[in-house]
């Protein structure tokens, strides 16, 4: 399994995402923002950080990076794509996922270990979890409030496309406590919390995040 990990200027979590891929016995392939080349990977992770300094809006400029054209094209053909934190923001700006991420409702940058409930276990990235399993992974973001209009929210709920929901107090004002969503096909997933920081109990709060990368392994092997 070869998994591309995109690096933009200002990306921070590409190295941890690459490590998570290796923990799932995959080969991590660094993808540079300026290249029109996915190097034949089986899946792509758009990791967290502050691409282009969050100028204009988080993810707004990264969306136009050369590599993103290839990512969007591949995602639309069914390639598994995961956006974490800033990567989630990039995927919404690129219209691969609906809605938008806005400033946390209390304006504080939130950095803590966060419980999530896994509500959709049929996406390319979540088959290893039990439905309604609760997992503990780090959340660290200042603009993590998920916003979408009522019709979009209803569609997401009706189609069971809310993949992760915050458990307990809503950390950032996300509508319907949404932490992560998927597209209609289930190959593209975006979430604000960081599963790649929770793949080993030595370096994270748990290894609960590893299931996402192992799920991808199953998806790629089956394909």
């Amino acid at each position, binding site marked *: 399994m070869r998994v591309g990990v995109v690096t933009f200027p200002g990306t921070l979590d590409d190295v941890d995402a690459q490590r998570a891929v290796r923990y799932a016995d995959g080969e991590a392939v660094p993808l540079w923002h300026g290249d029109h080349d996915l190097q034949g990977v089986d899946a792509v992770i758009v990791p967290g950080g502050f691409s282009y300094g969050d100028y204009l*809006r988080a993810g707004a400029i990264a969306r136009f990076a050369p590599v993103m054209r290839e990512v969007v094209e591949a995602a639309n053909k069914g390639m598994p794509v995961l956006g974490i934190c800033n990567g989630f923001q990039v995927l919404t700006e690129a219209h691969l996922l609906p809605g938008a991420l*806005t400033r946390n409702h209390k304006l504080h940058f939130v950095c803590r270990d966060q419980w999530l409930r896994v509500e959709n276990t049929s996406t390319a990235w979540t088959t290893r979890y039990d439905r309604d399993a609760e997992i503990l992974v780090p959340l660290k973001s200042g603009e993590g409030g998920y916003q979408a209009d009522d019709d979009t929210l209803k569609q997401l709920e009706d189609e069971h496309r809310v993949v992760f929901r915050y458990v307990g107090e809503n950390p950032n*004002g996300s509508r319907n406590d949404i932490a992560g969503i998927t597209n209609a096909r289930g190959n593209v997933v975006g979430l604000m919390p960081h599963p790649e920081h929770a793949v080993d109990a030595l370096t994270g709060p748990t290894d609960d995040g590893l299931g996402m990368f192992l799920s991808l392994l199953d998806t790629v092997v089956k394909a």
Partner: protein
Amino acid sequence: MARVVVDVMPKPEILDPQGQAVANALPRLGFDGVTAVRQGKHFELEVADDVDDATLAKIAESFLANPVIEDWTVRRVEA
């Protein structure tokens, strides 16, 4: 050359915590009577004369604003 102003504002139904924080700070500074603040972005573009309104609208809608959460206006002003 022409000067074009693009104003981008959070949609009315979208929570604007920054604007609320500004509004909450005003009474503490001794300014009373301001009941609400909304915070947005103001862009000043210097554009060639042959850039038409449709192009300007496209710039605003596809890049300067995110129509999911923001409204925008474009107007030409005297430089």
